[in-house]
């Protein structure tokens, strides 16, 4: 299971970075989303080795660590807001520049 989780996270990082480096702005934004979800999984795994019993119950044994999940919850909410903003800005850019090629969105050269 650990190997599988590690491989999944690694795969998501790889896919995210690959998409991030594409020339198409929309694809690179998607890469950012994938990367951000990979990071959330990574955060989840950072608390994975601290016991197996559900936290905040009276079951015997070492309870698992609930903090990474709280961190992820915060990170998800923030990234959702961020992605909404990215999408809205991409919409404005696509209307104004009529292109999705990164190299053509360069009117800020002085």
């Amino acid at each position, binding site marked *: 299971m650990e190997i599988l989780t590690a491989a999944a996270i690694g795969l998501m990082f790889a896919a995210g970075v690959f998409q991030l480096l594409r020339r198409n702005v929309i694809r690179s934004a998607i890469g*950012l989303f994938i990367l951000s979800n990979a990071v959330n999984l*990574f955060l989840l795994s*950072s608390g994975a080795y601290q016991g197996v019993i559900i936290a905040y119950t009276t079951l015997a044994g070492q309870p698992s660590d609930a903090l990474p999940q709280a961190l992820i919850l915060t990170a998800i909410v923030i990234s959702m*807001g961020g992605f909404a903003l*990215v999408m809205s800005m991409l919409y*404005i850019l696509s209307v*104004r520049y009529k292109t999705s090629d990164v190299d053509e969105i360069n009117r800020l050269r*002085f």
Partner: protein
Amino acid sequence: MAQISSTIVLLPILIPLFGAAASLLLYKRPRLQAAWSFGTIFLSAATSTGLLYQVWLRNQAVVYQLGAWPAPIGISIVGDMLSATLAFMAQFVLTSGFLYALGSRDKVVQYPGFYPLFLGLAAGLTGALLSGDLFNLFVFAELLVISGTVLTAISDDKYGTEAAYKYFYISLLASICLLIASGSLYASYGTLNMADLAQRISANPDRPLTALAMVLLMVTFMIKGAVFPFHFWQPDFHTTSATPVSAMLSSVVVKLGVYGFIRMTTLIFLPYRDTIELVLILLGAFGVLFGGLSAIGTNNVKRMLAYSTVGQVGFILVAIGWGTPAALAAAVIFTFNHSLIKSAMLMLSGFVASRAAIKSTAFNMLRGIGKQLPFAGALFLVGGLALVGIPPTNGFLNKLALFRSGIEAGEFASLSFIAVASTLTLIYVIRAFQQIWWQTPVEGVYAKPGGDHLTAPAILIALSLLIGLWGEPLVRLAQDTAIWLNTPVNYLQLVFGV
């Protein structure tokens, strides 16, 4: 209980946050909204002055444990010497930014979302500076980034959205780096509280993920501070945003990166201090050179000032890299003074642009227009001299403290490098002054009547002259901060309440 008296550290964060929410309710009453927002930020700046008074003059650093959970478990909001000083600086400069926005003729300041977002920027910046927890810093930094992005995206410049997108994209990468670093540190040490992290990293510096976390944190703060190899989004972003906003972004917002580096070298990563300092000296020195050269090569006064920020942040990083108490004091003095000067200079260039026939900060639109604006010219000249570091301005204090600390530390190689590169500042400041105030204007070009108000930059320039003539309080504040930073055990005792 100690909790109640320490609420003062929460006020500079909570007041702008609540003020932002309340000012959204006033969206149908623009004048009332503007007045309310200015009142909010003024009150907030007053409380951060009170915080500095408490921390510095009464010598009682304050910490607030949210929810009364003791330190490593709960989130701590820490007002120590460094945080209180920088929060005071940030809020003071932000107040002047609001003052400028009140007198600005830009369309963007009339949008109902402008003041709430500006207050959000203030809350995010102050919160990130006062937070004693790495993840909490991330949350406040996101608030700062999102507010700054939207403020730039709605600016009068039609390319603002492009710049804002670039910035937000890079900032999301920075937050991903910060999250990976937090995850690595949490997996290795089981805590995200800065004081607790410092303790555990000192006790056990060789966990497998520590170096990764350190590198990623450095990348994060480099992006936040627009440090040399990660600066590429910064000139676009600071050029296109509305004047009151860009004056804040280029002065106080980039100081979040500086703050992060000071915290890393003096608290969190003490066992790795030498490595980080070496990197900071190298990048800072190249930043000084690169920022200066790029600033000379631009044809736009705001862009020139934005590149100048890359260079000036380089000076601060070199000072942090030297790492002696005198150098840290110099870094604090430099941080403080640069915020005052750079925001004033950006406001002045925005003022000149608002008087131009076509609103633009490009030199060819502004050529010779300053002949009819002598007061702004005088202010710009004084501000420029301060940027270069010529007495009797506060810029002289910066360079004096910096170079003296370099000589004391015996860092002659980096010192001579930045001393030579700092002469570039003189070249680009004089060039801008010459273009706008000396050259003969094109036939038929007049400054428009009206335009932005000069109150805010006048106050900032007057203050920089005052600090230049009577700099003792600032120097003493910086020295006390450096002494505090030099004994990290103070911070640990403060947070853990021992």
